[in-house]
């Protein structure tokens, strides 16, 4: 096993034992899963670069040197071939895409292995271990020994050649193995994942390799925040071509986010049909049925036969988002009913639509809230819902994929309500983790310092100080728990109208708080008595704990209730922060009470 960072700079020795230069790079052929090393690049005297065929001239390789099979006079130098990749120049220290893990990573080292006198590339190392090795092999050995002491392995993260896509070097002219995955060959959703990790200029390079259809798919899969950016960075011609290939509702969403000038320019470059469709969609309000619908819908009239309808579908509806439902309209395009593909397939070809149409159709008004539409579809298991204006004219349909997006968005909003996080779609765990660990740790740290400072001021004796400090965590923990519970109840209630009235909530929470306070003061009293604390300190703390918990309970009910107000979506403070605030409030009350009582009782 060899590592490139260890080989670089090692001497190249000819058959006569003469050192003729130092290793500067190693080239591989690109067609295999574990590519063969094909050439050796080295720096001769005066840093003159040379290249040799590995197969012809290299006799052996070990950790200290590369030995050639002939003396200097017998060497024939060669040049880099177009399909060769240089490990140092093209890979080491560079960013690559790991097309298996869908990640952008930086190569720290390259791992080579020798089998039957042939050196092959095993893969690129990207983990922390390879950083340590590149810093110093000794550091790596030390770290792995430490890890072993704790019965852990320092893992190596190796990415094989067939899962690498280079960002810097264009591999399109290079022969790759059949299994080699390049970024643009991945599923559009995966491409989108990687694109979000790249810098704008790297993104532009990737887009050079995607054809318009792939680009359209990938952009549709990007998160909203990136879509407009990406389109904005593309040339206008290309951007308008790509937008034309997207579903009009998706395209309208993106165009709506662009600066006015750019949006106009793109719309003008598009075909008349496309641009007028998108313009019409842009006219509808966001977050309504009109905003998410697609106007591409197959319509038929009642007089048509099943045969005619199927022919129409074959002819015209190939590009439509869904053909499962076919809508029946009158001449002025007002909606009459719907036939499903199932109805058509099950009926005789001569049957007229009039005989099989379902006239009782779920419809959505163009200004209906998108969430209501999505819930309607989810409740009745619909694949699409027709959108009509106030006169009953069919304007378009909302398809199930858009409805799923809405539901996801809404659940993210609900989550944001709980955590205050805006972009919290798939971050439940992350935010929870953040709130519970690092945020808390820092608050604890800062609080600890403050408390220590304050206590120095008023604590009468060291014994009394101990009693007070002992219950600081309990007070803060309880306050956090109680307020989190209270906020949770509010969110669960959802709609402001369904929330219980304030006085009832206060009463309930007060009772709960009193219960907790009573239990906690019992615990405090018992503990301190058992520890044999001075009587005064026991009294002070036993009184201060329940009061502070009660204060936090009341604040925990009142503050969210008032702050939440009528519009729940305006709530944007992370609940973890809020709980922290209540905990600090409780702490302040606790310490204040303790200080006051200590004074009253006389130190």
């Amino acid at each position: 096993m060899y590592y490139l960072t260890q080989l670089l700079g090692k001497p190249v020795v000819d058959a006569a034992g003469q050192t003729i230069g130092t290793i500067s790079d190693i080239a591989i052929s690109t067609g295999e899963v574990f590519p063969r090393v094909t050439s050796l690049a080295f720096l001769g005297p005066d840093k003159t670069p040379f290249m040799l065929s590995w197969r012809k001239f290299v006799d052996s390789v070990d950790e200290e040197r590369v030995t050639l099979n002939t003396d200097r006079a017998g060497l024939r130098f060669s040049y880099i071939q177009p399909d060769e990749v240089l490990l140092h120049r093209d890979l080491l220290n560079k960013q690559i895409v790991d097309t298996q893990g869908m990640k952008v990573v930086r190569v720290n080292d390259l791992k080579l292995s020798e089998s039957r006198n042939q050196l092959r590339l095993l893969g690129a190392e990207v983990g922390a271990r390879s950083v340590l090795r590149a810093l110093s092999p000794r550091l790596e050995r030390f770290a792995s020994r430490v890890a072993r002491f704790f019965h852990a392995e320092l893992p190596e993260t190796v990415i094989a050649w067939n899962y690498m896509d280079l960002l810097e070097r264009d591999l399109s002219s290079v022969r790759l193995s059949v299994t080699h995955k390049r970024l643009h060959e991945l599923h559009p959703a995966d491409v989108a994942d990687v694109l979000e990790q790249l810098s704008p200029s790297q993104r532009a390079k990737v887009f050079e390799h995607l054809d318009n259809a792939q680009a359209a798919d990938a952009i549709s899969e990007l998160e909203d925040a990136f879509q407009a950016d990406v389109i904005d960075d593309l040339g206008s011609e290309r951007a308008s071509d790509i937008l034309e290939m997207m579903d009009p509702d998706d395209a309208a969403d993106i165009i709506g986010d662009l600066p006015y000038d750019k949006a106009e320019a793109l719309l003008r470059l598009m075909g008349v049909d496309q641009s007028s469709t998108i313009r019409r969609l842009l006219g509808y309000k966001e977050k309504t049925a009109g905003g998410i619908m697609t106007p591409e819908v197959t319509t038929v009239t009642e007089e048509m036969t099943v045969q005619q309808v199927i022919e129409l579908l074959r002819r015209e509806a190939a590009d439509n988002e869904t053909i499962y439902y076919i809508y029946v309209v009158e001449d002025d395009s007002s909606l009459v009913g719907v036939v499903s593909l199932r109805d058509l397939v099950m009926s005789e070809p001569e049957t007229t639509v009039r005989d099989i149409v379902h006239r009782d159709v779920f419809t959505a008004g163009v200004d209906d809230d998108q969430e209501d539409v999505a819930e309607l579809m989810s409740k009745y298991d619909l694949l699409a819902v027709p959108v009509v204006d106030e006169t009953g004219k069919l304007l378009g349909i909302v398809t199930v994929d858009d409805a799923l997006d809405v539901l996801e968005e809404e659940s993210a909003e609900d989550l944001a309500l709980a955590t205050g996080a805006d972009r919290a779609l798939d971050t439940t765990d992350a935010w929870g983790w953040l709130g519970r660990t690092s945020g808390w740790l820092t608050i604890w740290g800062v609080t600890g310092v403050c408390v220590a400072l304050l206590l120095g001021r008023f604590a009468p004796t060291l014994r009394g100080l101990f009693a007070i400090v002992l219950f600081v965590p309990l007070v803060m923990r309880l306050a956090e728990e109680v307020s989190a519970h209270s906020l949770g109840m509010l969110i669960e209630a959802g709609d402001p109208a369904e929330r219980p009235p304030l006085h009832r909530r206060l009463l309930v929470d007060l009772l709960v708080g009193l219960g907790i306070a009573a239990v906690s003061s019992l615990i405090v009293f018992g503990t301190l008595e058992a520890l044999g604390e001075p009587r005064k300190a026991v009294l002070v703390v036993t009184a201060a704990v329940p009061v502070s918990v009660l204060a936090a309970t009341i604040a925990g009910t009142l503050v969210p209730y008032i702050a939440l107000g009528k519009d729940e979506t305006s709530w944007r403070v992370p609940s973890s922060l809020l709980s922290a605030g209540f905990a600090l409030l409780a702490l302040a009350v606790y310490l204040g009470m303790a200080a006051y009582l200590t004074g009253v009782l006389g130190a």
Partner: protein
Amino acid sequence: MQPSTSRRNRILATLAVIGPGIIAASAGNDSGGISTYSAAGARYGYKMLWMMVVMTPAFMIIQEMAGRMGAVTGKGFSALIRERFGVRPTFLAMLLLLASNAACTVAEFAGVAAAMELFGVARYLSVPIAAAVVWLLVVRGSYRNVEKVLLGLSSVFIAYVISAFMAKPDWLAVSRAIVVPSVVPTSGFIAMAIGLTGTTIAPWMQFLVQSNIVDKGTTIKEWRVARLDVMVGALAANLVAMFIIITTGAVLHPAGIMVTSAKEAANALAPLAGHYATLLFAIGLLAASVLSAAVLPLTASYAICEAFGWESGLDRDWSEAPVFNGLYTVIIFGAAAVILIPGVNLISIMLVSQVVNGMMLPFLLIFMMLIINDRAIMGAHVNGPVHNILAWGTIVVAIALTVLLLGMTVLGVG
């Protein structure tokens, strides 16, 4: 789309490339900078103004080179160092950057504490709140929102301009001092000159301006406008610095009051220039400190993650970019916690941060020169001969001053 939004969008589109340079340069006028400038004015009056004039083009050239590297390569400075020089030099550079940024962040929170104490708020209240605000700003904001807030904060620097006018300086003397170089031949003066250079051209500003350019996706085609932003930012920052020197030079110098920190300067202003001058000075200090306390930890996190290939970016959450988020969180709250340790010597913390900055600067500038003259990286956009002469000149002076500063610090002179 209503006409009002469309007009706004058009303005936004034009302003799209504005920002990185102004923010980067304004962040340089942090609490350490304000302290140094105040002290310079109080001690030597207007005599150091001409140095700021001389330093401005040097500062602009260095910022311009950093920005240009970003626009051409689409990569941050630390990524370029990594790709050009390998792991070991990168590790050293990142260690220094982390140390310097962490030390500077501590100094920023010291600035927050000082400014709020001028308003009568105890640091045990103001610093935790400031830390939470800064952290939330960074965590919750998208890059664009953060940038807007930061741009807003940097406009507060106008406070210094106003307080300079309220100090009623002798403008004739000021303009003479700007044009005519004068030197006081004492070691104290030289030390002050070095301090000025160190705070004006801080190494992390180059990381910051370059990563902002990359983040915005500015390409070399848009570089003409972006360069203007970078240059104007450098110019504006140095102008603000000059107004600070003018303020303390007009008020404190004639009265013979020496100050060592921004807080002392602000307090010293009150009896001489009125309470409002102090107030403005304090507001400026607060804005500067908060701005830099937000920017510095971010800069370090961006640079380090980019160098080692860890995911980074304000749009990444904790599970996606743990190191990035962890780094700035630790720096922000760690720095704030240091301030809360009773009896901690804030002046020596600022001094340490300046020394670390000074040690880094020559390394980084040489890295920068090697990269920006490498045709394999910069293509046709390598430095021209004039540019190179100016830049190397700046570097030689910076190195000479730094060596001098280190020597003097070690020997305890000045």
